[in-house]
């Protein structure tokens, strides 16, 4: 037939060829970052948060006014203008300055509360999960009991009693806030500690601390990071909610919650800017963190990995 004979020469195969690793090796976090970058939801969240943080830092600073400066005579309820970008409120205070000052408060409270939750939760859940047995039993029973307490009600109760202020809010939010994290970490540790590589480390003579920090914690980072991202907006929402009820930060400090509360009168009048700006940026913050959380979950969920 029409096929030339040389085509039937045997071709030598080379062993290296077919076992070669084609992809470059990347570290876990490099890989996470790479995948997060291609996740539009997560990136949108990250960009929104970055912009909000930036404005929270420079916003009050670039404005010519302070959050507490009142001008009852000439500048009450002014519409947004080149003078007052977001208008002024019924005490003649600059809404732009107050909005970004409120952003500072919200972000500080949200991040601080989440960090404390993380710290307590990882410590508590880590110990319970790692020790196991009786210790775990007792520690988780305590969590079960506390779990039954309604979060916001406990926070309200604490705030009624304690001196109002930012620190108080953070403390109140973390009193029951760490439970979620503790449960998650404990579950993760329980699941991981019996896996082969931990057993291997143990047979090689690694001590508890080493195993905790080198093996268990890095491997639980994914879900923890996701929960952390979701607990920030939860704390921000709680702060706004409490400030709205008059239990949060006290006047004249600006918080999105108090600003919305003060602006309730606009239902009857037309000073829409007083309600709009704090509400909008509060919503945007919640949106940003939730989007980032969703994105991270997609990225860190091993089931989705390809």
């Amino acid at each position, binding site marked *: *037939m029409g*096929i030339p*004979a*040389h*085509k*039937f*020469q*045997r*071709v030598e*195969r080379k*062993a290296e*060829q*077919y*076992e070669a690793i084609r992809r470059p090796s990347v570290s876990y976090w490099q890989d996470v970052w790479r995948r997060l970058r291609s996740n539009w939801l997560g990136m949108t969240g990250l960009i929104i948060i970055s912009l909000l943080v930036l404005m929270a830092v420079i916003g009050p600073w670039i404005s010519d006014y302070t959050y507490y400066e009142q001008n009852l005579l000439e500048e009450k309820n002014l519409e947004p203008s080149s003078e007052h970008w977001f208008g002024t409120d019924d005490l003649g205070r600059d809404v732009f300055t107050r909005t970004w000052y409120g952003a500072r408060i919200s972000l500080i409270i949200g991040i601080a509360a989440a960090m404390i939750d993380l710290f307590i939760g990882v410590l508590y859940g880590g110990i319970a999960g790692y020790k196991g047995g009786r210790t775990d039993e007792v520690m988780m029973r305590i969590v079960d009991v506390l779990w039954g307490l309604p979060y916001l009600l406990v926070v309200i109760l604490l705030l009624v009693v304690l001196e109002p202020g930012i620190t108080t809010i953070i403390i109140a939010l973390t009193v029951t806030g760490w439970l979620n994290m503790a449960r998650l970490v404990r579950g993760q540790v329980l699941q991981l500690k019996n896996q082969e590589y931990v057993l291997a480390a143990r047979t090689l003579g690694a001590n508890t601390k080493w195993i905790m920090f080198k093996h268990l914690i890095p491997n639980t980072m994914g879900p923890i990071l996701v929960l952390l991202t979701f607990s920030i907006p939860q704390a921000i929402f709680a702060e706004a909610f409490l400030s709205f009820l008059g239990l949060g930060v006290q006047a004249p400090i600006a918080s999105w919650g108090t600003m919305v509360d003060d602006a309730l009168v606009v239902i009857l009048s037309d000073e829409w800017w007083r309600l709009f700006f704090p509400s909008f940026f509060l919503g945007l913050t919640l949106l940003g963190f939730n989007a980032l959380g969703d994105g991270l979950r997609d990225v860190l969920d091993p089931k989705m990995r390809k």
Partner: protein
Amino acid sequence: MAVLEVHGLHVSFDTYNGEVKAVRGVNFSLDKGETLAIVGESGSGKSVTAQSIVRLIPSPPGRIKAGEILFDGKDLTQVDKKEMYHIRGSEIGMIFQDPMTSLNPTMTVGKQIMEGLIWHQSYGKVQALQRAVEMLRIVGIPNPEKRVYQYPHQYSGGMRQRAMIAIALACNPRILIADEPTTALDVTIQAQILDLMKDLQEKTETSIILITHDLGVVAEMAQRVAVMYGGTIVETGGVEDIFHRSRHPYTWGLMKSLPRMDQKQEDELESIPGSPPDLLSPPQGCPFADRCPYAMQICHEEMPEQTKVSDSHQVFCWLEHPAAPKVNDLKVNILSK
């Protein structure tokens, strides 16, 4: 007489990375009461072929690109959805690999058997329940009157696979497609399930398409074998042909990688070096060429044509070409240690 004929089947999946050509021109036929085994490693396209027959590949991203699947003279790639619903389950039954996840955990086993009967054969509830009990008895589940009301988690692994068989056979289908039916089971249970399938096949004259990578199961069950590699069938023949007179280097590799009783324990198990081709960009020549110790230049360039070894035995390999060197002259070991 052939119950099912598949001609030139092409199936592709559209993924983010491009078109994955999972099945690339598969032909086979299935006779009444016959068991055809489709053998191959994971990713060879055997499961996709099976699922395409009943149009169960998830679509999108999957689609049947070309070819025909003749069942009863009807082309299953062309019949409308409604008709397909009536063929699935009632004419062609299916069982899957993992009995642990293939049963609905929140529905009693009885209801899961009854469903098909009520839908396809318009059974009443009482009638369907009787038939479900009967089916459970047939597949060897003790105490079926009680078991019919239980949930899957109350069954053991082997019993769940029996229940799956009961579901698949409840409507007396003419073809049973068994996709790795014993892979997830213990060895002793495997034998029981295979015996059960054989036994039922003799009674009902059902044709079986058995998808597996386990040659032991093939030897036990099948009359005919199709060996798949890289989305194509590379060799097809009777069990004897494949086990004793195989002509394709890939089939030799498969046979040799089976552990044998007469092997010395110190000997390592043998394997075929390398991995199956990337079906995103399948090789233009023989898919096995990259791993084939006999590969010639032509193998990398052109797809081999069919060579008829006997009426029942066909192979796709350039070594069959008259111009090719004789295998015995090529002193190479197909397997690495």
